[in-house]
Every structure is written in structure tokens, then in C-alpha cells.
């Protein structure tokens, strides 16, 4: 299992509990450092614990998920997720997860964007932290071996099936290989391809990129979620729980502008719509800091909630505002702007995590099942990790076949990686990796951002291709092996450029607006031509795009009104 976040841990636990003998977690970070820890607001499941959610059901959860996805989610997969949700959340409770509680002792739930009922179970505003620590504890309880601070550098595929991995012990810099009967990637999203991201600094999408280069197709990469409320300046996430608890969005004229865009749902519209609404306010001159450095922003106002409720339900938000913006949300509104937040696309896989390569699986944010389609609902990403992590882990254990003769393939791969690292370190190039990375991030935010247009995306794609040419000249400045950040970052940069190209190419070819993909030149959804998944396959000349139909079982596409 590559990745020690919620999906990787859950898969390891499932495989272990299904009787797999030699389950190992390989993680770039100690597991509790994984980005699952930063998820704040909660996890969706139709527990019907809230007084306003007594009529809730998995069918309604599924419907909200499908509608939220702008009908691009595969409905068979969304059904699996919604049906499994309650059991997985109850299981986390049985494993000790410190959920917040209702007066009757049941798990507390709060309203979230795009959801018909208060369905989001939470542990104050630290739900990801609560779940991740609980899951890590369960892995420790089972004695599952964890190799932490190892970076995977290649997925080795032999004769169309996974053979193992090339990896680096970060603390020593030593390279090695591991043979595996089955490999799962649960390596997280690719947020750091963008400037202004809520993601941690390590979410470069390396796992997706390694799979892509190994010949595994990636799906729906053009769908990038922009969270409405990133804290202006650092783009740290201000949880959707702020609005779930009743927070207002207010422009520079003092208007609750969501009345113009989602008159019924107001601040609790789905993320794509709220993010576009904020960006429109800013673009039309009704934001703060118009044209100033760091971009415009609007206000997220929590003051009317009062100090007691903020302390009980949103303590981390208050702490982050104090530490990172020098303001107290009890006294002042919070400056926020849309910020890259989630990678809806990813490694193309089934509900069991299976991919085009036998023995290779994916789960969590790096995977695209697809349940989030064109726009993920808040509270569905944590759920995705534990539902599909378990299903993938079970499947790996029950379909495990011996790896076969892998030694030659692994040693060839090791030699390839060694040669690539040597070229990065000792090559004649003069390009600065950090400078290229900065240009890539700014370019993606500018050209393939909240609003998109053919001319701008074409320019963006040309920039990415120039960056690919320049990447050949990147030189790592530090030649040591021990904890060489420069080497790891410049290695990852190639994958970031690959994925950026897949995102831009997919976005350019999708001549419609759907969910997070909003085109100025094609403002309407076009079900006749684009109710289909984009599947991108790597070639040295850029991605080859093909399309696959969406699974539609229960809900016919309809206009999306909130």
C-alpha cells in the first residue's frame, strides 16, 4: 500500500483482516502527517441523527452526490459509496473515532453544501485529524508494517501486470526495489500543480504521475475543485463547516451576494457554484483588495454565530485565523478567495480500485472511481477514502496472485531510476527547478483555473510544453543522498508537468461547462456531446484522449438548481 493517509491505511487494514500475509504500507510521511489530517468539516453518511435529517436515506445521499457531480459521477459507484457510508462511519466510531455528539449520545451531524439534509458527521472542525489518528491506531493495533519516509520513484509493470516498486529511503537516500503481488496507490491529489492551493506542500500528484507514465490511464483530470473559502494570503482551508454552521459570504458592498446565484441554498450551494460566485463578485469589482497583490477577496462572516458556538464547533478556524491572518473571527470577518482544493480526476479505476494494469489498484484522492464527477460535495472525500480503501484492500487480498519472476524487471527499473537521478544531479543543465515549478503553478491558475476559455487554455498548454522542454535542463543543486529535498522536488516536477498537460488537454477538448469546468466560450452543459468521461493515456508527445460513457442507473440528468 503506497500512501499512509486514510485510503492507504484502510486498504491495508482490509487486506490484513482478509488474511493477506505480507501487507506493507510505504509512505513518504509518517502516516499521521498525511493530508487526510487537514480535512476539517466532516464525513457524509445518512445516519439520520439530526432532527432535520430523520427522512434521510442512502438514496438521497446518492442523489445529492450525482447532482453535485453535475451528472458526471458513475451512478453505480455513487450508489456503492452512499450505501456503504453508514457502516463505514459506525465502524470508525467503534474503532474509537472521537466524533462530536448530540445530546442523546449519537454522532452529531451538520448541514453541508449541496446536501438535502444535515448529513455530515464531524469531530468539531478537525474531522480528518480525528479519523486519521484513529485509522493509524488501528493499523498499529494489527501490527501492520509501516515503512515511513520512503518515496516511491517508479511503478514497475511487467507484461501488463504490476511487479513492484522502485523506492528511496529518504533518510539515507538509498535506492531499492520491492516485489509485490499487488500494489495499491493511495497517494493523494495533485493540488500543488496550482498556485493558490489549500493543499499541503507535498501534494504534487506524484502517485498519479507515476501510474500515468507506467501506462495506466488517468480519467477526468480537467475537473479541479476550487474551494470557495481559502484564507486570503496563505490559501489555508476555511472549512465549509463555517457556512454549515451559518456563516455568511459578504462582498465589499455588504451584500450577501449568494442571493444572486443560489437563492435557495445561499451559502450552502455546492462548491463549484459558490466558488464561481465569489470569483464573479471579484471580477466585477465588488470584492476587496481589487487588483491588489494576492488577488481580490470577499468576507466570510462568522461574527453573528457568537464566541461560544465558534469555540465549540469551529475552534481550529479561530486558531488558524489568529496564527496565520492575525485576526479573530469572533470580532472580524475573514478574507477568503477561491483556492484549488481537490483533484476530482485521477487514476482510472473500478469501485474495487482495479486499473488497466493487473495487480495495480488505486484508492482515495489519487483515484477516479468516479463518484465525484465534475464537482465533489464537501464531506464526500473522507467517505471516498474509507469506502473505496476498504473495497480495494479486500479485493487485493481475495485476488492475490504470486508476483512471478520480477527480479529482472525490478533491476532494470532501478537502473532507469538511477540514471534519471544521476542526470538530474550531474547533468549540464542550468534551469532552476523551483523557478519552473512557480511558472507552472501560476500558469495553471491563470489559464486552467476557475473560469476557462479556448484562447487562454491554448496559451496555457503551449506554456506547459515549453516547460517540458526546459525541464530537460533542470539541475539539482545538492549532490548528497541524505534527505535531499532538492532532488525529490525536481524528480516530482516532471510528473507535475505531465499531469498539468493532461489537465489542460482534457479541459481544452471538453467544449462545455460542467461542474468545476466552467468555460466562458461554452457556458452550457452539453449532455449530447460531453456526458462522458475523459480518459488520458500517456505518450511522449502528450496525452491521447479517449472517452467513456457515464454509468446512469437511477437519475436522469436534469438542470442543476440550488
Amino acid at each position, binding site marked *: 500500500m503506497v500512501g499512509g493517509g486514510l485510503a492507504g491505511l484502510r486498504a491495508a487494514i482490509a487486506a490484513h483482516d482478509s488474511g493477506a500475509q505480507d501487507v506493507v504500507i510505504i509512505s513518504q510521511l509518517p502516516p499521521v502527517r498525511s493530508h487526510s489530517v487537514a480535512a476539517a468539516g466532516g464525513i457524509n453518511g445518512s445516519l439520520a441523527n439530526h432532527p432535520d435529517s430523520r427522512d434521510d436515506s442512502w438514496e438521497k445521499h446518492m442523489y445529492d452526490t450525482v447532482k453535485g457531480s453535475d451528472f458526471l459521477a458513475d451512478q453505480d459507484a455513487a450508489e456503492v459509496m452512499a450505501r456503504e457510508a453508514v457502516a463505514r462511519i459506525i465502524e470508525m466510531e467503534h474503532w474509537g473515532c472521537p466524533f*462530536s455528539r448530540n445530546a442523546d449520545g449519537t454522532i452529531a451531524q451538520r448541514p453541508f453544501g449541496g446536501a438535502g439534509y444535515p448529513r455530515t458527521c464531524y469531530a468539531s472542525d478537525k474531522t480528518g485529524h480525528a479519523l486519521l489518528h484513529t485509522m493509524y491506531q488501528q493499523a498499529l493495533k494489527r501490527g501492520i508494517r509501516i515503512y515511513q519516509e520512503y518515496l516511491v520513484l517508479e511503478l514497475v509493470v511487467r507484461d501488463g501486470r504490476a511487479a513492484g516498486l522502485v523506492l528511496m529511503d529518504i533518510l539515507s537516500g538509498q535506492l531499492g526495489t520491492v516485489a509485490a503481488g499487488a500494489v495499491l496507490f493511495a497517494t493523494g491529489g495533485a493540488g500543488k500543480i496550482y498556485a493558490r492551493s489549500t493543499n499541503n506542500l507535498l501534494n504534487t500528484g506524484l502517485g498519479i504521475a507515476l501510474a500515468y507514465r507506467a501506462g495506466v490511464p488517468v480519467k477526468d483530470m480537467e475537473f479541479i475543485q476550487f474551494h470557495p473559502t481559502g484564507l486570503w494570503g496563505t490559501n489555508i482551508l476555511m472549512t465549509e463547516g463555517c457556512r454549515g454552521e451559518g456563516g455568511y459570504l459578504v462582498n465589499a458592498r455588504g451584500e450577501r451576494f449568494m442571493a444572486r446565484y443560489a437563492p435557495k441554498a445561499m451559502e450552502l450551494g455546492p462548491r463549484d457554484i459558490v466558488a464561481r460566485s465569489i470569483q464573479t463578485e471579484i471580477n466585477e469589482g465588488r470584492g476587496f483588495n481589487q487588483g491588489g497583490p494576492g488577488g481580490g477577496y470577499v468576507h466570510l462572516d462568522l461574527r453573528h454565530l457568537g464566541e461560544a458556538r465558534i469555540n465549540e464547533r469551529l475552534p481550529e478556524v479561530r486558531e488558524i485565523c489568529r496564527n496565520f491572518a492575525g485576526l479573530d473571527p469572533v470580532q472580524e470577518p475573514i478574507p477568503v478567495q477561491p483556492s484549488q482544493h481537490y483533484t476530482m480526476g485521477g487514476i482510472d479505476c473500478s469501485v474495487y480500485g482495479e486499473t488497466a494494469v493487473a495487480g495495480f489498484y488505486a484508492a482515495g484522492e489519487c483515484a477516479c472511481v468516479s463518484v465525484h464527477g465534475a464537482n465533489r460535495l464537501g464531506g464526500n472525500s473522507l467517505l471516498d477514502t474509507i469506502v473505496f480503501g476498504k473495497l480495494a484492500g479486500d479485493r487485493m487480498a481475495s485476488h492475490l496472485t504470486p508476483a512471478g519472476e520480477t527480479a529482472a524487471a525490478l533491476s532494470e527499473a532501478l537502473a532507469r531510476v538511477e540514471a534519471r537521478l544521476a542526470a538530474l544531479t550531474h547533468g549540464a543543465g542550468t534551469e532552476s527547478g523551483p523557478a519552473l515549478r512557480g511558472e507552472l503553478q501560476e500558469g495553471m491558475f491563470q489559464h486552467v483555473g476557475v473560469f476557462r476559455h479556448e484562447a487562454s487554455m491554448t496559451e496555457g498548454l503551449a506554456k506547459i510544453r515549453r516547460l517540458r522542454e526546459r525541464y530537460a535542463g533542470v539541475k539539482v543543486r545538492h549532490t548528497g543522498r541524505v534527505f535531499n529535498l532538492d532532488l525529490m522536488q525536481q524528480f516530482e516536477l516532471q510528473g507535475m508537468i505531465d499531469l498539468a498537460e493532461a489537465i489542460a488537454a482534457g479541459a481544452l477538448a471538453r467544449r462545455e461547462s460542467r461542474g468545476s469546468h466552467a468555460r466562458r466560450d461554452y457556458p452550457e452543459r452539453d449532455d449530447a456531446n460531453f456526458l462522458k468521461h475523459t480518459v488520458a493515456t500517456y505518450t511522449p508527445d502528450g496525452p491521447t484522449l479517449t472517452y467513456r460513457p457515464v454509468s446512469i442507473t437511477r437519475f436522469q440528468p436534469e438542470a442543476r438548481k440550488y
Partner: protein
Amino acid sequence: MKDFTLRVFRYDPESGADPHYDTFTVPYREGMTVLEALVWVLDNLDGSVAFRYSCREAICGSCAMYVSGSYQLACRVQVKNALDHGVVSVSPLPHMRVVKDLVVDMEKFWANYARVKPWLINDQPEPERERLQSPADRAKYNMEIDCILCGACFAACPSGVNNEEYLGAHSLTWANRFIVDTRDTAKKERLDLVSAEHGIFRCHTVFNCVEACPKHINQTEAIQHLKKVAFFHRFGMWRL
């Protein structure tokens, strides 16, 4: 302030050079954190600087270090609050083996955590739905679960300096988290674990852990609670 001096502890086991401090001139931006300053140095001045980082929002626990004389998460402390005569001084967590620069060996820290069985134990059959817990009972461990396992308390504790077998404030805080959880049924086993030779009675209430904790946890209070329960339990005066 246009720029400031970042003074960084350096040690590279491959270079043969003695440990020393390097100084870097870093352009200042209002609101800049010490982690941002380190990243700026890595990107622009010196590709060989090593430090751990990830979330940059004080929740993942990667970047605990010793900044201008106090324990900090580098991502959480602002440059302007760590300045001493125009200099921000950054060193690795003390009392731990340095791997490279600001990166220390955390192996014992993680191993000690696992020794206290930091997972819920409940020997009753699992109900179909969630186990009920009142908000008041849930609040009993609200402080402990804020721990992000950053290691600041472990490095700061004088009881641990010469005895790495001492479980450490982080492990004992998590032990208390399960002892006070109404859903946990392994209280006796937990008390035996924490009152063994290298457990709670090695805590001399110096409170360094409390001062070091970036999440405002009172580990000493948690440990004192464990001592109290262990003591009364020993004399049959505490029903588990």
C-alpha cells in the same frame, strides 16, 4: 523591515564538516512564517537545506523545531514573532540524534507511542449502531485528542533526555485519552502499562511539555490524572 537574517543549524553526515550555523538574508513579507522562510532559502539560496514539512497549517506535526529559543512548529510561528535583534535562529529538536540539518531521528518517539496501546479497546460485542456517548463524556478527552504527535514535548522533557525508554508526554497523554473514554474497557491493562518502570512516575512535573506544546495541551495534567488513578487503584479506592 525589508529583510532579516535566518540562522540555520547545519549538519551533513556526508560532508565531514562539523555541525555549525549558516546565516541567510531573506526578504521579509508581512505575515511570513519561519517555514516559508526556510522554503525560500531552499528554493533560492541553498538546495541542500533539510527540514520536514507538509501541511503548513499546524495540523500535521511535521515541522516541530527549536526557533529562537522556544519549541515551535515552523509553519505556525511568524518571523516577526521569532525575531531577536533582526535574527531568527532555527535549530533541530534538542536531545535527539540529528539526521541532517533540522531533521532528527524520531524512531524512538514513534515506538514509545505504540507501547501504550494507543487504540480503543472494548471487549463488548459491537452494537449495530454507534456506541452512545454523552457530550459531557466526549468532552473528557477533548484536550488529549488535539495532539498532532509533533515531538516537541518529547524533546523538551528532562526525564527523557537521559532515558529514551521513558514513554514521554505524548504517549502518556494518549494513554489518558483512552483511560477517560467511557467506551474503553482496558483501563487496568493501561494502568499497568503506564505505571511500569519508565512510565508516569518518571514524570517530575517540570511542565516543559506544556510550555513546548504548540496545540496548548496540558500533558502534565493528563499525566497527573494517570498518577492519581494508578495510586488510588493500587489501594483499592478507584473503581475502574
